[in-house]
């Protein structure tokens, strides 16, 4: 295929990303940098300096970090087990295991989140069961643990898939070599599997951290509107206050954190690459 044809095939994607990614970003930037009377404004700085925003942002970052960490701690061992299983069961069954993660993603995330609301409610499934068993009630709905639980549940597949893929891609010879040189299973995981699946871990972290940082649906439904994350404030500015300028300004602040996250993961991946291809220079 020649070059002009390839370009032609990429055209729909170019139109899509221009229309739905690039232009909207510029519209947000435009609103963020201007005020209602059309002049330039310091809205972004004001948004960053507002104590309510700062508190919401800090809360968002803390919740997202906790959710990302929990996802990682669940996803990594699970990916190890699943890759071992699919190794034993053969290639054709790998699809089956992959389906297991993807299946929940086919249900609308809003519905899944509302389902959790019902499960966690004072009179929800869990508490009815605990009451029946004569145990103390679980009381986490409308509290931070419920929001973090929602984040973990919604975004866990995004952590599992890249990690599972990167573990599957590791050449079995490296694992055999480590064992041959005297490493037991645990030592092999920490010294060989983990470092070699680092690209998957980094991708997973970004894919869980960023949507957690920007969510407003999960905090709305499982936080009962009592806990404001930065996503909730942005949403309120646009819908309740109808203030596009303030909403865009706060979005820009949020964007800075997203860009920082992406830069960190890009850098660590590049460091990983250059380390592997580096010549005789000391680390």
């Amino acid at each position, binding site marked *: 295929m020649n070059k002009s044809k390839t370009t032609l095939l990429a055209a729909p994607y170019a139109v899509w990303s221009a229309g739905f990614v690039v232009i909207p970003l510029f519209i947000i930037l435009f609103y963020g940098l201007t005020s209602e009377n059309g002049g330039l404004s310091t809205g972004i700085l004001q948004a960053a300096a507002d104590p309510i925003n700062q508190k919401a942002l800090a809360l968002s970052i803390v919740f997202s970090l906790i959710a990302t960490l929990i996802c990682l701690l669940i996803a990594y061992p699970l990916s190890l087990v699943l890759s071992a299983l699919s190794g034993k069961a053969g290639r054709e069954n790998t699809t089956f295991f992959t389906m297991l993660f993807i299946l929940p993603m086919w249900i609308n995330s809003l519905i899944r989140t509302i389902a959790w609301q019902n499960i966690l409610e004072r009179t929800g499934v869990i508490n009815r069961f605990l009451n029946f068993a004569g145990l103390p009630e679980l009381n986490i709905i409308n509290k931070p643990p419920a929001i973090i639980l929602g984040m973990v549940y919604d975004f866990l597949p995004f952590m599992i898939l890249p990690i599972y893929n990167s573990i599957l891609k590791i050449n079995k010879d*490296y694992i*055999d*070599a480590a064992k*041959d*040189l*005297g490493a037991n299973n645990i030592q092999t995981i920490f010294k060989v599997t983990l470092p070699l699946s680092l690209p998957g871990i980094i991708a997973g972290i970004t894919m869980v951290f960023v949507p957690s940082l920007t969510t407003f649906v999960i905090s709305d439904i499982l936080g009962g509107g009592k806990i404001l994350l930065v996503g909730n404030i942005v949403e309120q500015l646009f819908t309740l206050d109808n203030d596009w300028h303030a909403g865009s300004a706060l979005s820009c602040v949020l964007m800075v954190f997203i860009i920082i996250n992406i830069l960190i993961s890009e850098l660590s991946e590049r460091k990983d690459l250059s*380390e592997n*291809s*580096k010549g005789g220079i*000391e680390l």
Partner: protein
Amino acid sequence: MAERLVELQNICKSFGNTQVLDDLNLYIRENEFLTLLGPSGCGKTTILRILGGFESPDSGHVMFHNKDITNLPPHSRELNTVFQKYALFPHMTIAENIAFGLKIKKKSESYIKDKISYALKLVNLDGFENRYPDSLSGGQQQRIAIARAIVNEPKMLLLDEPLGALDLKLRQDMQYELIRLKNELGITFLYVTHDQEEALTMSDTIVVMNQGYIQQIGTPKDIYDEPQNAFVADFIGDSNIIPGIMIHDKLVKILDANFDCVDTGFGENKPVDVVIRPEDVDLVEPEKGIITGTVTDVLFKGVHYEMCVMARDFEWIVQSTDSFPVDSKVGIWVDPFNIQIMHKPESEDEKAAVIDL
């Protein structure tokens, strides 16, 4: 004779419905360079993986110094493997790769440092400590893989087609290097290859395998000069394998002509296979030959010419330093000493092995 280091007893192994090894028995002596030689799928790599602990046999025992290690995991075995594709850890420097096994055994830092520089000297790669594996050539990576294995002072080194990915010149250099290493270290080498030249050059003992069965065990000279069946003869170098009839001791009838030979004990009028190496066929004046034929092809191979001679409906492969032009009539003569008589395949398995080649 040195003591037996490793013994495989009645090993069976199948993958799915494919029986790879069937009741295999083999022992390896202390300080021996033993080569498992055979075409791909003959079970040689499976034997190596069973010894390394990466596969467990369906039945049978692996003995190491008379101790049963059949169920011992790889990390507890006193042997190390050099993998076919080197398997150097890409996220570690050369020094870290070599130190891997020693760090796990919690050796002191100074001990590890000494071992690294000793091993790098041994494989002629001083000063490569801080490089990463993918900045090294295939031959260099291979030598690091050997260094990484031997610093652990294994009783036995398993080498899985370690030279397969290297080019011809490098492969020849590495063969000398491996023989030198073996002599310097004084440990047992189990070498797996499908390259008969590698096997002949380096081994003390060659085990020729096909389809999970051992075809012949012997010194390189035994295997080359006295192949026990057509498979071995064909696999080790080029051969003319011709069906014949043993008239009586020291006389065999090939292509309706009587050839003197030195073999005895095959009985009278017994069908046999006759092996004549291409370099052992002498092309002479037509009237001086036992049979006559016509040259159909001449190839210049550097040290010798390789010719095809059609004689009595059989195409003989002949190697000689003298060439005869295409279409010329030649006589074929073979020194009785160079005629090797083999029994016809007896079992179906042996037969299958020959046909499959």
